[in-house]
């Protein structure tokens, strides 16, 4: 992801599927393929050559999880000893009764999680046939749980690093100004909770701006200005 600093960035080159992006002196990374001695792109995306590997980063892509990703998902199916969870990916994720923080025993699964319930979980396994398994019992920085308050919004997963910022700088700034709790799922689903609707509404607004302007330089400053203006306006309203 591009860093937010004042360097002159090298121009990003947009390529299309079937476009020539390299030759046999290079190696193929992600998003590119060989035909004979030439390398072509699979995607409409940005060409990126690193260490002689030719990559094409698609402009649009669906989220596909890595093991360890934190995801926020919605229960989409209840079966006998598992749930299926929509994690905003190509495939739903599998959540087994043994991987939740409750003892199910002989009870109905719906007593614990039913259709439409939201969970915060971790991706525990992805196999070669792309079956995805999530778990709510793994230890880690984030407590996995059923989400029972607040709201969620969804952005493309590729924009998540922008919302988090360098070493979490962007998300910390937003949380501080708006006095909200925010958890950003790697799958692009973001949970926001706070005492005040105005603050939650502004948080949604800010995240939408980051989504639409992710490519631009100086984004952190732009957001900082917006937050400052919002804070001032709030002061003015308070004093009226």
């Amino acid at each position, binding site marked *: 992801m591009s860093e937010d600093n004042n360097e002159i960035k090298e121009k990003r080159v947009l*390529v*299309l599927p079937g476009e020539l992006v390299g030759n046999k002196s290079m190696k193929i990374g992600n998003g590119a393929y060989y035909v004979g001695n030439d390398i072509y792109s699979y995607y409409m995306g940005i060409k990126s050559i690193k260490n002689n590997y030719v990559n094409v980063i698609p402009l649009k*892509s*669906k989220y596909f999880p890595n093991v360890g990703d934190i995801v926020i998902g919605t229960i989409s199916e209840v079966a006998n000893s598992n749930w299926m969870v929509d994690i905003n990916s190509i495939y739903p994720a599998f959540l087994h009764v043994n991987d939740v923080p409750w003892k199910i025993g002989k009870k109905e699964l719906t007593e614990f999680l039913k259709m439409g319930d939201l969970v915060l979980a971790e991706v525990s396994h992805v196999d070669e046939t792309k079956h995805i398994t999530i778990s709510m019992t793994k230890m880690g920085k984030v407590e996995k749980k059923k989400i029972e308050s607040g709201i969620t919004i969804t952005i493309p997963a590729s924009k998540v690093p922008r919302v988090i910022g360098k070493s979490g700088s962007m998300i910390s700034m937003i949380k501080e100004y708006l006095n909200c709790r925010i958890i950003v799922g790697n799958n692009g689903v973001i949970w926001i909770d706070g005492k005040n609707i105005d603050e939650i509404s502004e948080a949604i607004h800010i995240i939408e701006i980051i989504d639409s302007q992710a490519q631009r330089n100086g984004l952190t400053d732009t957001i900082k200005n917006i937050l400052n203006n919002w804070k001032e306006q709030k002061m003015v309203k308070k004093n009226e």
Partner: protein
Amino acid sequence: MSSDGAINVPKLINEDGKRIDGRGLEELRKIRMEVGILKRADGSSYVEWGENKIIAAVYGPREAKPKHMQNSLKAIVQCRYSMAPFSVDERKRPGSDRRSVEISKVLSEAFESVLILEQYPRATIDIYVEVLQANAGTRCAAIVAGSLALADAGVPMKDLITACAVGKIDGKIALDLRKEEDNFGMADLPFAFVPSTSQIALLQMDGHMTEEEFKYSIDLAKKGAMQVYEMQKEALKSKYKTDDIETENV
């Protein structure tokens, strides 16, 4: 298609070699393309080709349902070609018909030839094409629109697919027939093509041609399709070019 022995078949080419809309034999109709025009779909496009108005949308890759449709080794491709009731001269009853079913099938197969399916086991790539206004050559326009929508959706492909139809009017081979030419002409040949591999992804023909006429038609179709290909690339690039993204001229 023409009926042999038809009376009152209009003259399709005049003394100056011009067709009824003023085009030369090897000239395309006016084409306009736009990408990313729908909110809900993963990718979309809108193509105006002569008086054709076609919209395409892609959903996917997404899990294939019902389960029995799934292929455990790769994604399946499902293209649905459909015409709006108001798209044609005589109102078309809503719902499927045999012509749409056949076109859907040959379009699905054409797209399959360039899509990377092994990457998405148990998934489906759904391509929906709606003809809002028809004036011959809709399946070629559908290939073009579907191809743009797939690129817009970020579905990996070996290349864009491009297409163009060729026909025979007043005994001469002509590029990109319009409705009257298709109705009263002597042959119609829709053609779709993958430029980077020179593979022919869709080919149909009905009418009457000698082998020589046929070979000439294929050559002409390729030429027409390559012009369309340039427009497709331009439509994608112009949509997504910004201040800090540039494109190379290929």
